[in-house]
């Protein structure tokens, strides 16, 4: 290998990692002595490896390791620590001067300024509080997002239900709706009524067909006859159209009243609080 024949990146990598050989006669080693280009590549590789090494989980060295190091090196740790602290506060030149004076024994010890432990910990506490607050906000934000999603889904479902119910009501209540009562073939159409009732909700839908036209100042009135034998409950007045069709949709009724039967009477305009005989239509 010559300076003109550069090793490949993998060879440099191999050399950098220390395998298989870092011997003095290693061709990559010899090449690196001559080649600035490959040295730059090696420096980059080592830089990457340094980062990988520095990223390892940090573990503090054991207590006493520093003392053992200084003892091995034959140095005075106490003096070095004192001077290093002073140097950290006063700058290099000053500390060097103090260090030199200290070596002669003529030093007047200066009390280094210390940062209040309260101030030091205050910063960490504030940072921890900010972190906690940020985490709390994040959790609250996530909770609100989930709640919003749930409520949005419910609203969509409610809207769909309401739209369908509205269509049903539109069909039942529209004057333009074609209403036909089917009877046996060739039979004469008779007045008839159809009631659909949900007792627990107090909801009633009533349609009638082939009703006779009303005399002046008269109205038909629908009644719910309770199963418990109490007085009939008025369920709304109605007038048939030109074809004898009529409907009563969701009149105001008490909830939870089980019905034994339903009836229709002829009443004075404005309706009555008790039914007037005879009952024109009845079913139950």
């Amino acid at each position: 290998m010559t300076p003109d024949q550069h090793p490949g990146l993998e060879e440099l990598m191999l050399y950098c990692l220390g395998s298989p050989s870092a011997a003095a006669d290693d061709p990559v080693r010899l090449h690196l002595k001559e080649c600035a280009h490959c040295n730059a590549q090696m420096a980059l590789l080592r830089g990457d490896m340094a980062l990988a090494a520095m990223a390892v989980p940090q573990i503090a060295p054991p207590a006493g390791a520093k003392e053992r190091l200084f003892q091995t090196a034959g140095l005075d740790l106490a003096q070095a620590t004192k001077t290093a602290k002073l140097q950290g506060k006063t700058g290099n030149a000053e500390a060097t001067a103090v260090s030199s004076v200290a070596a002669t024994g003529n030093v007047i010890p200066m009390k280094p300024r210390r940062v209040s432990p309260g101030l030091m910990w205050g910063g960490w506490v504030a940072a921890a509080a900010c972190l906690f607050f940020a985490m709390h906000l994040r959790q609250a934000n996530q909770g609100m997002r989930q709640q919003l999603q749930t409520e949005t889904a419910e609203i969509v479902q409610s809207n769909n239900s309401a739209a369908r119910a509205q269509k049903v009501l539109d069909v039942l209540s529209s004057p333009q709706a074609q209403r036909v009562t089917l009877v046996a073939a060739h039979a004469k159409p008779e007045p008839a009524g159809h009631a659909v009732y949900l007792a627990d909700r107090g909801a009633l839908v009533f349609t009638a067909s082939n009703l006779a036209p009303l005399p002046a100042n008269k109205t038909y009135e629908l009644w719910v006859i309770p199963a418990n034998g109490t007085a009939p409950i008025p369920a709304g007045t109605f007038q048939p159209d030109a074809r004898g069709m009529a409907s009563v949709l969701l009149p105001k009724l008490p909830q939870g009243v089980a019905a034994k039967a339903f009836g229709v009477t002829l009443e004075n305009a404005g309706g009555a609080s008790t039914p007037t005989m005879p009952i024109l239509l009845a079913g139950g």
Partner: protein
Amino acid sequence: MLTAHFTFAPKFRAVYSGGAPLALIASGSNSSYRAILSLPATPNSDGSPSDRQLMQQIRERQPQALSRIYDLYSTLVYSVAMRVLRDGAAAEDVMQEVFLKIWQQPDSFADQRGSLCGWLAVVTRNRAIDRIRGSRQFENVDDLQLSNKVDMGAEAEREMMLEKVRTVLNTMPADQRQAMEMAFFEGHTHMEIAEQTGQPLGTVKTRIRSALSTIRKALEVSA
């Protein structure tokens, strides 16, 4: 003093901002290179001595500089040694060896060879691998140079970059990470890794190269 260790690049661009360290970017016709910078000669922003000043003080035999360097980097050195050796006593031995080398042979680290902490990390790793192998394979290659775009001497920037590296390592494909860790922290040769994992040698090399490339790209994006 700013020193670039390659002289053939046709273009240089130097950047200096306030008290921040210098950056030098050089580009050639086919590739671009990151410069190897001297350590900043000025004190840190908090008035404490810079790494370069500390190394100069060590050359002047001032023990407080060793104390300061130990305080700054002993956790890093011990952590790297522990990662390789997984033994506290052995890790402390390696840590002592590294710091003694700084004290006894301060010129083994030249300012222009890169950041002190990066140099310490790699030298510690090499010493620990040597200890595993029972060899002195790396003893003669400590005159190594390192290059990073990141200002490894600036603690805040260094921590930010290391956090990014940790994220990259945690999210890279498991086979890449395994290959790199076996080579870097366990000292296995590529051939040994291939035998242990049952993968072809070429695949092992590619995985290690990809892992290093992933780290570098992540840092280049953020640099």
